[in-house]
């Protein structure tokens, strides 16, 4: 089945699909907009297999454009609306996009692109369109055809786009719904962009169960988001580590009742143990799902059942339904508890590869398995604990040091909001450990205080040589810390 058909399978026509800036949008309206845009694409001569970009903030219109592209059998290319124009242009050319959907702010920002490329403006008038009939289904639809090309958060010089097929989308969506036990009663607050695989997974899963997506396009003012969650009685929330750090240490979240909030999803990097414990303590009635995944796996690969959160603190759990995960050593053999190896994954959600990048595809995808590049250890029960990214490991005086472990230690200090640790070139040590620390506003924490805490809790070889206080850590568009920027920052200081 086409993934667009699959996503709308359970929609009750009068149920609310979106609560967004444009107002309340029912499933009937949403399906109407999708059909209208599908007819629009056909009228503009877009054929199955051709690529169509979407550059806009989250809205029901974004989702309708996306589903219309999928339904037509064309390929969606979601692009960040935070990119500068030249970056958007690079992705458009790299993917060979034939058509572009954008919203008003994007139209202003990318005015030059609109002259060169056929495009369609996503705006409020879409809500009033006469719905075209829902296109009929193709009998021999190829499940392994590309549905979307998802940008990864890599920092390589040319765009890297992950091919995601209709089979990938449906497999991952079904697994996530199963372990999160999602139903039509869900009402999730979405602060993550749909062009990011984690944000897209929220869209897929909540449409598929016929739930409601409440959209907030900015997390700049967390209080506004929290007010909206209260007003709309949100049952779910999903965030990356920086989202939860802000909620826990720079907002009224821990003190708010939010009685309807029952499911919290956390993925997109490690939320350190001290913060996870704070989160659990502040939300005794919510189920907290720590999850792990990659764009190359559509979105999700593992989750830790909420009831095991304190027992298996710091673990990313085990494979989600339909996904097999193994941690392999350099010879390809499964590691023993306590040893470290690379996480390798199998399942119908694993992408067939990158677009136009055979070398990178060969390295990452081997014999149907995804080599994640994440180093991990396992315990006796088979639960997986990420030790570090292969590339973030610090090698100092012959020791291999996990930046995660040092960061966890720093975050135990209550006056610390966030912290990142990197290795910097050092003639004697090979690499020396530098800690970048963000203090809570008004906290009088000194370098000596930080080092004293580390000395009390870390092995000698793991102690940072330098502590640098920053007002904030550099983050990419997905809220991940840009460690490359930190290395540069120190090198030029």
């Amino acid at each position, binding site marked *: 089945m086409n993934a667009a058909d699959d996503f709308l399978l359970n929609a009750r026509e009068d149920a609310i699909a979106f609560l967004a800036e444009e107002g309340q949008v029912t499933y009937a309206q949403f399906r109407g907009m999708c059909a209208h845009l599908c007819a629009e694409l056909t009228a503009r001569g877009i054929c199955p297999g051709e690529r169509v970009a979407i550059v806009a903030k989250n809205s029901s219109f974004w989702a309708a454009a996306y589903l219309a592209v999928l339904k037509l059998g064309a390929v969606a290319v979601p692009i960040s609306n935070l990119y500068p124009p030249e970056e958007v242009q690079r992705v458009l050319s790299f993917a060979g996009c034939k058509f572009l959907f954008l919203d008003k702010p994007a139209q202003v920002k990318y005015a030059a692109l609109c002259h060169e490329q056929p495009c369609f403006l996503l705006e409020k008038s879409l809500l009033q369109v006469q719905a075209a009939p829902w296109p009929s289904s193709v009998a021999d639809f190829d499940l392994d055809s590309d549905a979307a090309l998802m940008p990864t958060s890599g920092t390589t010089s040319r765009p890297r786009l992950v091919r995601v097929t209709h089979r990938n989308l449906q497999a991952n969506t079904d697994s996530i719904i199963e372990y999160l036990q999602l139903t039509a009663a869900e009402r999730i607050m979405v602060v993550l962009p749909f062009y990011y695989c984690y944000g897209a997974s929220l869209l897929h899963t909540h449409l598929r169960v016929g739930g409601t997506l409440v959209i907030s396009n*900015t*997390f*700049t*003012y*967390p*209080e*506004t988001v929290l007010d909206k969650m209260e007003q709309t009685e949100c049952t779910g929330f999903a965030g990356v580590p*920086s989202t939860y750090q*802000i909620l826990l240490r*720079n*907002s*009224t979240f821990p003190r708010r009742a939010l009685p309807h909030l029952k499911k919290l999803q956390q993925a997109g990097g490690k939320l350190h143990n001290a913060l996870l414990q704070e989160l659990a303590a502040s939300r005794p009635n919510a189920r907290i799902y720590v999850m792990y995944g990659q764009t190359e796996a559509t979105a999700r690969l593992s989750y830790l059942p909420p009831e095991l959160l304190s027992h298996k603190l710091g673990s990313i759990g085990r494979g989600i339904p339909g996904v097999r995960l193994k941690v392999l050593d350099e010879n390809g053999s499964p590691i023993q508890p306590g040893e470290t190896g690379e996480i390798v994954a199998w399942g119908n959600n694993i992408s067939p590869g990158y677009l136009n990048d055979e070398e990178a595809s060969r390295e990452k995808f081997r014999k149907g398995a995804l080599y994640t590049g994440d180093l991990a250890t396992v315990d006796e029960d088979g639960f997986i604990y990420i030790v570090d990214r292969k590339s973030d490991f610090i090698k100092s005086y012959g020791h291999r040091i996990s930046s995660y472990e040092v960061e966890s230690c720093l975050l135990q200090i209550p006056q610390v*909001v966030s912290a990142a640790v990197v290795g910097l070139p050092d003639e004697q040590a090979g690499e020396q450990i530098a800690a970048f620390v*963000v203090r809570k*506003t*008004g906290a009088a924490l000194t370098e000596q205080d930080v080092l004293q805490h580390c000395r009390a809790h870390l092995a000698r070889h793991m102690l940072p040589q330098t502590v640098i206080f920053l*007002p*904030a*850590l550099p*983050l990419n568009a997905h809220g991940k810390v840009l460690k490359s920027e930190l290395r540069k920052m120190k090198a030029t200081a």
Partner: protein
Amino acid sequence: MQTIQEALRAYIAQNILFSPDGFTYTDNDSFLENGILDSTGVVEMVAFIEDHFKISVEDSEITPQNFDSISNLAAYIRSKLNHKH
């Protein structure tokens, strides 16, 4: 003496926009709509305001009404300073 507005404009131009041309928006322009501040930018602003104006900003006060333009911020800071004295 530098006014509250001047101090805010100078801080944002130098530390958030990295703009050599100073603060090129009007005092009523929304920080959000113009992409001037993001969530880390707000945290930086709070630190600056607490330090520079010697006031304490509560988490619950970090709202668009208080923070989302030079004018809003100046009014908020003025009311906090008045309360203090």
